[in-house]
């Protein structure tokens, strides 16, 4: 699984530049749709970095879950709430931007000095590489069995919670008969029945 050193360095450079550029685009671009697609670029670049780290299973899981599920979910959410409105400018917004940039730069400087000054105990053993799937499976069903089952319960809870939160609310009972009078119309809030036609009118 070990490529030559030069190929590793070059592909690491390309992938990290792609990833950081796309991440800056996600944060700074005006259009939220472009941000969502660039987020997919970030995820794919990180999957490539995982391949450089001898973790093919996690790279495949990253592509499947993040690009295939999370990014598509975000695109659907953008489609559902895509209201073209100009945000009201906040007074003294530049103070917040400057303060945040200073804090982020400070955190990055702190982390960099910590990373570069710590003597890491680099192990010289050969990486698991292609056998990583077997090792991960052994961990899941021996010493990480309880977190594994808890994660499945948490996913079930998130599924039910997302359905309950995103479900449309019904009208209360006194309005029910009035809404029932109009045949072929579900007793829902009427403004939610045409959520897409409003986007063109509100500009």
């Amino acid at each position, binding site marked *: 699984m070990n490529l030559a050193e030069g190929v590793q360095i070059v592909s690491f450079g390309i992938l990290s530049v792609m990833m950081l550029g796309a991440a800056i685009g996600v944060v700074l671009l005006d259009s939220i749709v472009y941000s969502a697609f660039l987020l997919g670029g970030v995820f794919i670049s990180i999957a490539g970095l*995982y391949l450089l780290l001898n973790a093919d299973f996690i790279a495949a*899981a990253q592509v499947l879950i993040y690009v295939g599920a999370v990014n598509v979910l975000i695109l659907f959410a953008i489609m*559902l709430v895509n209201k073209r409105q100009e945000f009201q400018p906040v007074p003294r917004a530049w103070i917040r931007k400057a303060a945040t940039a200073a804090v*982020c730069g400070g955190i990055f400087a702190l982390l960099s000095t910590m990373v570069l000054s710590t003597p890491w105990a680099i192990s010289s053993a050969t990486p698991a590489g292609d056998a990583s799937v077997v090792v991960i499976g052994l961990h899941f069903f021996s010493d990480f069995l309880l977190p594994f089952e808890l*994660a499945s319960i*948490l996913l079930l809870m998130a599924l039910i919670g997302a359905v309950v939160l995103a479900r449309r*609310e019904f009208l209360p009972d006194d309005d029910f008969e009035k809404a029932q009078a109009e045949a072929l119309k579900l007793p829902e809030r009427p403004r939610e029945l045409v959520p897409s036609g409003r986007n063109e009118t509100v500009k």
Partner: protein
Amino acid sequence: MQLQYFLLVAAALFCIGIYGLVNSRNAVRVLMSIELMLNAVNLNLMAFSNYLDPQTIKGQIFTVFVIAIAAAEAAVGLAIVLAIYRNRDTVDMEQFNLLKW
């Protein structure tokens, strides 16, 4: 290839995520910034797993758990954004002040 390169890239990605988290007006973009930060942490875990613990790769196990939690978080977070959009008719973070003093 060294461990430090990966850690530096992950730190940069984490800082970009913090900046986006604080400065975004759109609620969906805030969720995207949270995903960026989670991915930076994942990259850290994978780098440690490969360079410090290459035989019993426990960092990869943690990464799998973080990916599962992130997927659940994205689903619930986007459902909350949808519910807020139905109630307030906007996705501007500055106007979500129901619980703000």
